[in-house]
């Protein structure tokens, strides 16, 4: 070893940025050192990117969570060992597959493996790892999270099965969905065509089924086992997209509806990766769980329904999803998915309240609505409905997220900022109601004529028409010739001061006004200028004039 060469190289490389470039300090004949310096520059070129904040944050959380668990004497490692013990008890080859997956997880580190397996599909090597990770998540979830997680996982099973079918790959799958129709030996279960054979019982359309089987290259699923999870309720039977979830809890016991001899000895307990290691049955087993509906008088859990659909409207407390109105409370709004926008396709779960209304309890976005486009316009408010306003001829939806400033009223001008969704609907994000530029008037005068919706009142030598409506506060008994204290204002957007909106009309008496009061305290003469005698008021239909 040439130590002097190493030292010489080290000297050249040490803090090069503070001195000349190392090459400049080399002797021309020191070719190897020059090459090594050049090579070191190549290493410096190895770029690194700053770690994603989320990536390192996850690692930090994992570390602290693990430390916490160790401090309490319970660690993930123990969970893994317990899992391993359970898996070892499984029959081969299922245990072998799952065990190998577990070993891989343990050896390679759960984080990376879980990440790498996230996209795995049935039949992939890492699929068992994916299912194992899900199982752990389910175990770790508290009851409130578990319900949502199970819903998400059920949706994921269907997506996986569809993906496998799209790839024309043969693989074991299991999913839960609703029986939509039967065509001989092929059943339409959700989006799947499931081959069940000809000799099968007449399960009612609308039943919630779990299908365990194998995908075929012809785009169908060959059922190995079909489990009846829930028969449709009478009122829900016609709604083929509705699934009663009241008893979609863990199912441990199955009872064969038919052909009990042929029933396989597989357990209905969820087993990660199980589908991939089982063989296809010539005739699927149709099984059902025992009816666990409570007897009369027993405490019943709220009935739950689940369905998929697009969010079509989002009002303050009621959303319309898949054509059904569901109540949404503040607690749900606080934790709802940001992607749950109008137009998004979602899977929702709701409880049926005693009055029959639905209350949303969970929501999973299956397909986002796409990027909405911001729009902005200004114009008169033409109608106001709790859910929809019409502003300048454009209907815009009001949602719980719409921020409204000012006091809305028909006739006022509003500045609207809204999002236009792919379905061309508009949802307001911000509405600013402009206070009209009005002029207020106050005087005392004699009622010249009366009609249901307007009065004519003298003001000096002029006669002013006052529009009467919901905006008017009326005191006293009006009569032609009576003295009235008037508070009125101009009509927004109009410069006509001969016609005003009456705000307060306080009728004093029916006696003719005195000179003082008739001319009245015209508070803002500059607004009206010198009153001119108005043109003779034509007698119109409904007017009562002083004779």
């Amino acid at each position, binding site marked *: 070893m040439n130590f002097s060469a*190493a030292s010489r*190289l080290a000297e050249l490389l040490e803090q090069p940025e503070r001195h000349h470039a190392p090459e400049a300090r080399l002797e021309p004949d020191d070719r190897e050192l020059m090459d090594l310096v050049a090579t070191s520059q190549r290493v410096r070129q190895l770029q690194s990117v700053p*770690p994603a904040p989320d990536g390192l944050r996850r690692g930090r959380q994992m570390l602290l969570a693990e430390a916490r668990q160790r401090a309490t004497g319970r660690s993930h490692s123990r969970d893994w060992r317990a899992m391993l013990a359970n898996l070892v008890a499984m029959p081969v080859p299922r245990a072998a597959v799952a065990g190998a997956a577990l070993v891989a997880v343990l050896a390679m580190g759960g984080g990376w493996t879980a990440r790498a397996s996230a996209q795995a599909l049935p039949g992939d090597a890492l699929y068992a790892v994916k299912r194992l990770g899900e199982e752990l998540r389910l175990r770790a979830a508290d009851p409130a999270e578990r319900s949502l997680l199970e819903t998400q996982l059920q949706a994921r099973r269907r997506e996986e099965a569809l993906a496998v079918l799209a790839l024309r790959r043969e693989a074991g799958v299991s999913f839960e969905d609703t029986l939509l129709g039967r065509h001989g030996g092929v059943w339409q279960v959700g989006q799947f065509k499931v081959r069940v054979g000809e000799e099968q019982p007449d399960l009612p359309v609308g039943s919630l089924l779990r299908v365990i089987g194998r995908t075929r290259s012809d785009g169908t699923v060959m059922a190995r086992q079909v489990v009846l999870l829930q028969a449709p309720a009478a009122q829900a039977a016609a709604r083929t997209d509705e699934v009663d979830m009241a008893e979609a809890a863990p199912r441990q016991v199955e009872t064969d509806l038919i052909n009990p001899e042929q029933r396989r000895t597989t357990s209905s307990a969820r087993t990660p990766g199980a589908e991939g290691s089982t063989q296809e049955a010539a005739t699927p087993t149709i099984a059902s769980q025992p009816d666990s509906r409570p007897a009369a008088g027993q405490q019943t859990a709220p009935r739950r329904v689940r369905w998929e659909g697009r969010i079509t409207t989002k009002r303050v407390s009621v959303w319309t999803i898949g054509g059904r109105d569901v109540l949404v409370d503040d607690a749900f709004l606080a934790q709802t998915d940001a992607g749950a926008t109008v137009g998004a396709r979602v899977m929702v779960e709701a409880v049926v309240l005693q009055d029959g209304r639905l209350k949303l309890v969970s929501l999973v976005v299956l397909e986002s609505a796409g990027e909405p486009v911001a729009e902005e316009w200004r114009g008169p408010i033409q109608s106001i409905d709790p859910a929809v306003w019409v502003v300048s001829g454009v209907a815009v939806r009001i949602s719980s997220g719409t921020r409204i400033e000012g006091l809305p009223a028909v006739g006022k001008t509003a500045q609207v900022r809204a999002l236009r969704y792919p379905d061309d609907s508009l949802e307001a994000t911000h509405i600013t109601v402009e206070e009209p530029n009005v002029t207020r008037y106050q005087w005392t005068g004699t009622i010249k004529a009366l009609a249901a919706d307007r009065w004519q009142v003298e003001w000096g030598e002029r006669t002013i028409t006052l529009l009467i409506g919901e905006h008017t506060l009326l005191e006293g008994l009006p009569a032609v010739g009576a003295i009235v204290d008037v508070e009125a204002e101009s009509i927004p957007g109009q410069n006509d001061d001969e016609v005003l909106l009456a705000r307060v009309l306080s009728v004093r008496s029916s006696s003719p006004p005195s000179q003082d009061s008739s001319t009245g305290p015209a508070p803002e003469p500059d607004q009206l200028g010198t009153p001119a005698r108005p043109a003779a008021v034509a007698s119109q239909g409904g007017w009562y004039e002083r004779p």
Partner: protein
Amino acid sequence: MTSDEERLLFERAKQSDEAALAEIYDRYSPAVYRYLYRRLGDEVVAEDLTAQVFLQMLEAIHSHNTWETSFSGWLFRIAHNLLADHFRRSARRPTVALSELIPAKDGDPVPIAERSVTMDQLREAINHLKPDQVEVLLLRFGEGLSHAETSRILGKSEGAVKVIQFRALRALRKELAVQAPEGSFV
């Protein structure tokens, strides 16, 4: 941070002091990540292996199998071992990370595609070096540490680091010469 400070922090971590663990993680995880990323060229795997480094550190703390000379050097060694496991299990093929396709801000004149290939070749070549050579190269030229800092991390003398550095660069040059097409720059 001095060795004494490191040791103090580590002692607190051994007592399951979450603040100490968090400080260790915050202080060292970016460097560990960069080290892993330079070897992998894959952000996702680098992130996950970074997390694994610290989980193994925790495991080691509780099994009293800990560092002797340099805490940070010990972390880099854990990272190096995890990398070796990763490469062995994944039978890694050369890949080009997406981030490599992003042109450098300083306007590297080398065409992006060509540059990506050479960066990948460089990683491959480094992966063929001895572990101590890789550590010295990445700490010296990746992290920009001095000989003294590198020696402290690795628990070696400065002279030893200089020798390893010399051998590493010579071996790397040889590896690149094997990989590079005839006539290309090495």
